[in-house]
């Protein structure tokens, strides 16, 4: 076949289970089978990661070939005849799963992943249970790392598929987890098997999202939250992050991309929270503080020519990113915005402003947050995060944990009515909603900063600043020229504001390395630790892949478009809090409650 078009790949014809199919050269048997809607089971394979081919669950039979190739790793070749369901294949797969189980601590009813474990799923599909192989679990000494506030690593449940290792290296460029030792001693290990809290782990939880078993899970605080709810002396406040409302449905059996904001609020009220509030409120507040911080840094740099001012300024909403930069680029901590993340701003205000308004004693208030994130659990436990005089956020639950609580309470989520957030600290804008996706903080900030500086609305149709909307797996650069500015901002006239948006720590590393090498000349950097931003966070429902994240992203922008107010500075409750409590942006109270500092940490 002659290729006229360079982009056109050579077509390969093969037969799978008697059906002929033509696919591009380089396609794997697994991908070709999926095209025919033939399901080949997999375990170590994950769409987001490179092929490993180490679990062998996806083996198929190839005619005229003696051994069974792994469908995920074997590229198609002309005239190949594949059987995915022959006697030989079925028996081999069953034995492979049974062998994996012989080294897996399968006390499923005690496991956090019970019901959503991929290995358990395969075991039930293949009706394993012949006890053909010796149970090796009792003879092994396994490590369970429970010292971390965010993630628990239980080696006895690990099947060594290395999805976590690939995630940590390919998506996050952290490699806190690696493969150590060899053969039957091989294990997934940190440096010298130190506990996770002692190494470079950022707690992003991407490994948790991809672990097929219960070997890597979040530390859950469900029981503590129930205890607080049932304690009649406690006033329990809950805040919900922007990315939770577009993914919670998935944890409760709904398809990806469903906006469930109203039902989520209704569910939280029925669970017994005393007040259901919105992290979006402090997301808007973050924009006011961070936008003003950016302007003040620009003023110092451009007008006062202060050589000490740190530019570019980087966002600080993503706690995975914060821990990453603390380890990897500690020399750039001054470039981070001093703003706390919306979660922590909210926590600090709950135990001060909210208590004051509602005439509550902060010691009787329990503040809970629902986050798409495992790193938020670590963040809430940081010693810096006690500026209200108490622990600002007492418990952080992931989207998954909220899903479990809703199931525990016996609520039929889909049939719940749509309810509204309580007040105060429940009002939000479209600008806050898009914090949940990559590029969202940048867009929200520009909507506000541009208007502050020029007095005019940003000239993009429908306020949709598409050039800064990040894309997964890509570093997006954009610039914005400031013209006809207000007199007090005259030093910004004609200035081209250079922005960059990155998601996933591998891309963050690239951006920071460019800044370090002097190759990039940015003013403002937005970084989210997880692929796609918070919507792909480590606390989001499992499974995750690009399709699912794209649907969540569409839902976020849909939610933004549906809001009546879409600029942070127009949030009425934000305006009110400055009038009643905070005074002015970057003021004394703000500094006390809403800003923080960072801790240099060792990478090695």
């Amino acid at each position: 076949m002659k290729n006229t078009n360079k982009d056109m790949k050579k077509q390969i014809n093969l037969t799978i289970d008697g059906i002929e199919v033509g696919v591009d050269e380089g396609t794997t048997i697994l991908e070709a089978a999926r095209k025919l809607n033939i399901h080949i089971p997999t375990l170590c394979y994950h769409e987001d990661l490179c092929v490993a081919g180490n679990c062998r669950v996806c083996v198929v039979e190839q005619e005229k070939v003696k051994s069974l190739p792994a469908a995920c790793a074997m590229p198609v070749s002309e005239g190949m005849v594949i059987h995915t369901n022959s006697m030989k294949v079925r028996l081999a797969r069953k034995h492979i799963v049974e062998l994996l189980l012989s080294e897996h601590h399968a006390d499923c009813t005690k496991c956090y992943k019970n019901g959503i474990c991929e290995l358990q799923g395969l075991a039930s599909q293949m009706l394993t249970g012949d006890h053909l192989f010796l149970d090796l679990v009792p003879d092994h000494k396994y490590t369970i790392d429970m010292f971390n506030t965010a993630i628990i690593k239980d080696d006895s449940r690990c099947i060594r598929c290395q999805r976590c290792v690939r995630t940590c290296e390919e998506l996050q460029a952290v490699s806190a987890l690696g493969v150590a030792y060899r053969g039957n001693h091989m294990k997934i290990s940190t440096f010298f098997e130190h506990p996770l809290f002692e190494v470079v782990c950022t707690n992003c939880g991407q490994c948790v999202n991809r672990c097929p078993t219960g070997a890597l899970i979040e530390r859950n605080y469900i029981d503590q939250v129930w205890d607080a709810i049932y304690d009649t002396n406690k006033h329990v406040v809950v805040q919900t992050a922007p990315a939770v409302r577009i993914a919670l449905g998935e944890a409760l059996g709904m398809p990806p991309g469903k906006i469930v904001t109203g039902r989520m609020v209704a569910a939280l009220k029925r669970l017994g929270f005393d007040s259901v509030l919105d992290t979006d409120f402090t997301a808007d507040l973050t924009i006011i503080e961070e936008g003003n911080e950016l302007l003040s840094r620009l003023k110092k740099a451009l007008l006062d020519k202060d050589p000490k001012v740190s530019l570019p300024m980087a966002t600080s909403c993503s706690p995975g990113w914060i821990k990453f930069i603390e380890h990897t680029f500690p020399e750039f901590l001054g470039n981070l915005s001093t703003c706390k993340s919306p979660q922590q701003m909210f926590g600090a205000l709950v135990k001060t402003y909210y208590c004051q308004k509602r005439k509550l004693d902060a010691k009787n208030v329990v503040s809970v947050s629902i986050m798409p994130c495992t790193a938020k659990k670590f963040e809430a436990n940081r010693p810096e995060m006690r500026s209200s005089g108490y622990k600002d956020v007492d418990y952080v639950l992931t989207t998954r944990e909220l899903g479990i609580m809703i199931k525990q309470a016996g609520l039929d989520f889909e049939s719940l009515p749509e309810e509204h957030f309580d007040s105060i600290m429940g009002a939000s804008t479209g600008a806050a909603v898009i914090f949940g996706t990559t590029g969202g903080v940048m867009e929200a900030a520009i909507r506000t900063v541009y208007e502050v500086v020029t007095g005019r609305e940003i000239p993009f149709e429908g306020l949709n600043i598409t050039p800064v909307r990040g894309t997964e797996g890509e570093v997006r650069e954009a610039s914005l020229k400031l013209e006809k500015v207000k007199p007090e901002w005259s030093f910004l006239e004609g200035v081209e504001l250079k922005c960059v948006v990155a998601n996933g720590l591998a891309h963050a590393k690239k951006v920071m390395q460019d800044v370090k090498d002097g190759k990039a000349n940015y003013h403002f950097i937005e970084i989210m630790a997880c692929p796609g931003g918070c919507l792909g966070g480590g606390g989001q429902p499992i499974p995750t892949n690009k399709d699912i994240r794209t649907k969540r992203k569409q839902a976020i922008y849909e939610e933004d478009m549906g809001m009546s107010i879409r600029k942070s500075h127009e949030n009425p409750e934000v305006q009110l809090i400055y009038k009643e409590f905070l005074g002015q942006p970057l003021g004394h109270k703000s500094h006390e409650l809403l800003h923080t500092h960072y801790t240099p940490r060792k990478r090695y």
Partner: protein
Amino acid sequence: MATNKNSYITELVEHYGRSRTSLMPILQGVIEKNNFISDHDMTDIARELDLSAAQVYGTATFYSFLDTEPRGEYIIRVCKTITCDMHGKRQIIQTIEDMLKIKAGETTPNKKFTLLETNCLGWCHEGPAMLINEKPFSGLTPEKVHDILSEYMHK
């Protein structure tokens, strides 16, 4: 934060370069110098090669000849595989243990000898076999081992 880097790491890195493929020769270089790779050395190498410490640890633990624990000046590795075993490997180990007053896996208090068992050395036709550092000895008998070790003990 910066720990005092051992100068031999700098030399090795300068010699082999900073690409990931340099990791193996650098690790082997450390072994040649030190008989084992310490956690400090691993972090220094990781920093130089822009790898994570866990990645260097993974590579070092994969190879049994890249020791990650302190070893003696002379590392004795006795082949434990089946042919040597049938040719009397156990008596060989016993002789060494008696002479050095240590068990397999241990190092003498004066840090001169470490006794280890190893997988096949490829001397099956002349088993039992052992290595002392890089030097192979085959066709071993307790008497022969006694002579060899005595010589090393006086080195």
